[in-house]
């Protein structure tokens, strides 16, 4: 019995090392900033419902911050709201709003700087200039956040999730709206982006710059300026994403620019002005993707080498392929083309005459875009017929 009590005491004392500090308007601790000052490494701060007019809150200790019933942290258009500089911080359940814009300072709802092992979960960020800004950080998770900017047509807005010089981070299950780019990666390596929903962002749903060995899968990019841009990057895997409704004179589902050794599998491209725009894209495998109802499905500009299209499904697109400049060593094998009109007399499931996706009219239209008014005209039908 005495041993039992000693063991029990041991557990109780061990437990009391990490305290819980409760913050509410009628509690002894009324502010989040004050609570952080009082707290010690490893403590939990529980913030109850209410509106907290606080900004420039610095989290420089390993803490867990939990918001109960969505406490609102109001920046009042004054400054950045949270900045995390200690490793091992968890933040969950806050509504953070109104950072305001500044010309010289890139304000964020939550900034994570020079640290690791962070977990930013289930927060709402409304009308922040940058939503979540990660810099020089690694091994962390940003998940299930809801980030909505007011930049519907404005360009004076930052990115919803912005990562700069990061490694091994996961961005998962977030919904991002109305920012410059939904998710932006610059110099970010070995990271995963999955199950996000990105809509109505001014520039891109997702944007890679100078980032290598990353993977994005099961995301939906809808109604953005353009869907996704992957630029100056290597070894990016793109799997089972949806690129939808990117309309505009210069809108793409996917822009590939100076990218090497990548793969695209099981993606859907539906209703984009241009499905994939490629320039300087080399050694990329496209397998089992579906392209439907796009204007120009694939546009290949100069420097596209060793792109292999295998088992893709091209359905109801206006033009399948437009090629410009020196592109060579690209292959198309075993794809389905809804425009194909040939026979399969030996019934092996493959058309007897190979399909030629590049049409003369596509070339004419590329040289002289105004000629698009002739599309679907008798003249163009004749042109296509005489080409066969």
């Amino acid at each position, binding site marked *: 019995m005495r041993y039992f009590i000693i063991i029990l005491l041991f557990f109780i004392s061990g437990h009391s090392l990490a305290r819980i500090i409760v913050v509410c308007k009628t509690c002894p601790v009324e502010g989040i900033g004050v609570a952080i000052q009082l707290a010690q490494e490893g403590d939990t701060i529980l913030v109850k419902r209410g509106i907290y007019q606080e900004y420039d809150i610095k989290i420089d200790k390993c803490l867990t911050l939990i918001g109960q019933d969505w406490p609102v942290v109001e920046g009042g258009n004054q400054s950045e709201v949270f900045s995390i500089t200690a490793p091992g911080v968890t933040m969950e359940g806050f509504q953070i709003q109104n950072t305001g814009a500044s*010309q010289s300072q890139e304000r964020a709802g939550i900034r994570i700087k020079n640290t690791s092992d962070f977990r930013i979960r289930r927060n709402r960020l409304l009308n922040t200039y940058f939503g979540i800004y990660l810099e020089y950080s690694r091994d962390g998770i940003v998940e299930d956040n809801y980030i909505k900017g007011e930049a519907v*047509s404005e*360009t*004076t807005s930052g990115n919803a999730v912005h990562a*700069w010089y990061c490694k091994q981070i996961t961005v998962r299950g977030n919904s991002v709206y109305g920012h*410059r780019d939904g998710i932006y990666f*610059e*110099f970010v390596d070995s990271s995963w982006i999955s199950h996000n929903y990105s809509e109505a962002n*001014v*520039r*891109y749903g997702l944007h890679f*710059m*100078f980032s290598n060995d990353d993977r994005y899968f099961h995301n939906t990019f809808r109604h953005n*300026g*353009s869907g996704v*841009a992957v*630029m*100056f990057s290597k070894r990016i895997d793109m799997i089972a994403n949806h690129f939808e409704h990117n309309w*505009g*004179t*210069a809108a793409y589902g996917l*822009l590939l*620019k100076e990218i090497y050794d990548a793969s695209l599998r099981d993606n859907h491209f539906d209703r984009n002005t241009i499905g994939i*725009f490629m*320039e300087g894209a080399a050694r990329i495998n496209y397998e089992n993707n579906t392209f439907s109802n796009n204007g120009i499905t694939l546009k290949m500009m100069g420097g596209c080498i060793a792109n292999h299209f295998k088992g893709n499904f091209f359905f109801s697109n206006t033009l399948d392929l437009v090629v410009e400049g020196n592109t060579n060593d690209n292959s198309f094998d075993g794809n389905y083309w809804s425009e194909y009109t040939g026979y399969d007399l030996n019934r092996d499931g493959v058309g007897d005459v190979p399909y030629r996706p590049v049409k003369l009219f596509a070339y004419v239209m590329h040289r002289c875009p105004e000629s698009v008014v002739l599309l679907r005209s008798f003249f163009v039908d004749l042109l296509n017929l005489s080409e066969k």
Partner: protein
Amino acid sequence: MKKAIFILIGVAMIAGCKPSPQPINYGTDLCNHCQMTIVDRQHAGEAVTKKSKVYKFDAIECMVNYVNVHQEPEWAILLAGDYNRPGEMTDALAGSYLISKAIPSPMGAYLSAFASKEEAEKVQSEKGGEIYDWSQLLTKLHPGTPQ
């Protein structure tokens, strides 16, 4: 009278052909060099040829690279986004440039433009970095030059 009209038309045609810059539609126009949509009002660039063709750039480094590679056509006007006045442009040849790790630019060159050297020095004293003029910038960012 007839002669006067012809002269007037002639003058109007010549005046109409004078190269002039076009405003950038932020959020819709594309960069002529890298295809990115132009959104950054502090770092955009614009170049106009002697034949009045307008090229727009999302970053000054894109304009520098483009002008470096394309000696032809002849450039009449080169404009760089003014860091201190978002949305406004300054003469690129007369401008001063700051490369500072504290100010990211759209294409990763950390390059910003200023209307005068004094303005550039003021920001340099806060953020650090190095100041270049246009010709130094061309050699600094040239592909063949070790950086």
